[in-house]
């Protein structure tokens, strides 16, 4: 039989070569070098902008090229950029307290970034992380301050509030997920719209039904001690809380889910090539809803962590207040 020639016996050497990852550090290099280059480029562009603002330019073009003028302008640029970047460094890494604050600021960004990344893996552009974060914050705050739960021990109360917030985020993201699966409504549009709904709904809630009657500014009552996500250090100047470890843990869990389970395999396949996914018997709609909800779950967790670990009360626009007044 001529067909027998096609059946090659697996040889040990060939097996070893074929099962060796081609370049195991490829992903690592991409994932580390590219962000670092991006930061470097941002610093360079920032330096140019600072120089433009700081340098006193001569009145006439002829003066521009005089040696003493050039030297002065160079000096001004160097001082300006140096002052700015030293301030940036001091404020973020200069003291132990500022490192703590940097990490505090990173916690919701890690969780929110993870939410967006999970959406991307499933082929979804979840712009609605912000809205889902607010949904999570509202529910976590309510579970935190409500007298119904204030008697609970911390071991029950805190997980309940975290879980409630996460599920609220998931529910908020479930809506655009379902709309996409059922009607094809694009998630970029629907999630952006739901962002406004969530932010303004939060404004309404903290101004009226959830408002602390004794407070001068609109906010909810403070959460009970049992629901507080503890700080990592007892020293009051360090606000760093357990949310950081929660965020790292969430990252590991999501990696495991995406790459070690059949659910993750389906989500990634649908994200990478929906036509092939359908051919292989996977449901595009179902996986879109799942990926969207999981993404919202992480965003909701970010909101809950922010309230329970840092804010202890919910205010309108609490997550935007540094940028938008």
């Amino acid at each position, binding site marked *: *039989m001529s*067909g*027998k020639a*096609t*059946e*090659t016996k*697996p*040889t040990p050497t*060939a*097996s070893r*070569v*074929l*099962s*060796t*990852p*081609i370049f195991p550090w490829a992903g690592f290099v991409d994932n580390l070098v590219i962000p670092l280059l991006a930061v470097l480029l941002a610093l360079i562009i920032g330096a140019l902008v600072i120089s433009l603002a700081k340098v006193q330019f001569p009145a006439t073009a002829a003066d521009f090229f005089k040696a003493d003028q050039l030297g002065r302008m160079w000096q001004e640029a160097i001082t300006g950029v140096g002052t700015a970047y030293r301030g940036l460094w001091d404020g973020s890494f200069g003291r132990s307290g500022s490192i703590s604050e940097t990490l505090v600021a990173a916690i919701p960004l890690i969780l929110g970034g993870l939410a967006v990344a999970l959406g991307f893996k499933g082929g979804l552009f979840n712009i609605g992380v912000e809205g889902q974060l607010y949904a999570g914050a509202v529910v976590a705050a309510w579970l935190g301050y409500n007298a119904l739960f204030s008697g609970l021990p911390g071991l029950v109360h805190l997980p309940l509030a975290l879980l409630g917030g996460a599920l609220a985020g998931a529910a908020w993201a479930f809506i655009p997920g379902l709309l996409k699966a059922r009607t094809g409504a694009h998630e970029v549009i629907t999630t952006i719209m739901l962002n406004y709904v969530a932010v303004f709904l939060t404004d309404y809630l903290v101004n009226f039904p959830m408002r602390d009657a004794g407070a001068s500014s609109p906010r909810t009552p403070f959460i009970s001690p049992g629901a507080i996500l503890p700080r990592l250090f007892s020293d009051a100047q360090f606000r760093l809380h357990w949310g950081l470890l929660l965020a790292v843990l969430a990252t590991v869990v999501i990696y495991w889910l995406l790459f*070690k*389970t*059949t*659910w993750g*395999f389906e989500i*990634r*396949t649908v994200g*990478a*090539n929906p*036509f*092939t*996914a*359908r*051919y*292989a*018997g*996977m449901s595009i709609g179902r996986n879109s809803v799942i990926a969207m909800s999981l993404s919202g779950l992480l965003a909701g967790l970010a909101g809950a962590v922010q309230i329970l670990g840092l804010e202890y009360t919910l205010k309108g626009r609490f997550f935007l207040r540094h940028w938008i007044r």
Partner: protein
Amino acid sequence: MGLRKPLAGRIWITGIPGIPCETTHLSPRQITELGVAHIPEDRQREGLVTSFPVADNLVLNTYYQPPFAHGPFIDEEMIQKYALKLVQEFDVRTPSIFTQAGMLSGGNQQKTVVAREFSRPIKLLVAAQPTRGLDVGSIEFIHRQIVQKRDGFPAGEKCAILLVSADLDEIISLSDRIAVMYRGRILEVLDQKTATRERLGLLMAGITPPPASGAPGTQPGLPGPGLPGKHRF
């Protein structure tokens, strides 16, 4: 294959004892599980996830079944062992089973699809343009695989094959019976022995020539005044 919702008619897979054979409204997964394999027309669009490693592409429709998964947990080691075996058995030329499928040549991509579809127990193979755009070596390899599958080689059950192709040489050399379609309808079903390229070509153009045996005076296959006009547009 369940990829399009039928508007009318019914589809049956017969000859599988003990299981319901109507597949009209089944999902792609249900049809796959009945033992139907599908080589899709466009391997990059539908057959492979080009950004996934070859190994993952080889278990694209069996990843959720043992031994590749236990419950929801994927057994990567089993998948890699299986992929290693298939890559060698089907002569997929790849630097590694971790190479992205999109990095392979067209022939090796198609061999990956064929390896995946042929290496599970199947009763029916639907092959759409299985050798389109491939090199001669890969074409020959895939043709041999298809014929072996039909004959039940090297072991196991024989498999029914529905070959969909626009390549006349491929059709004539592989098929036992040939159905020619024009505008969504089967014009004629011919036996491979009586099929000529000319006759197939006319049928493909929507012209039904008189039977080759009859009308000795006229050249078979050429359109004449006496041709039935019902399929002409």
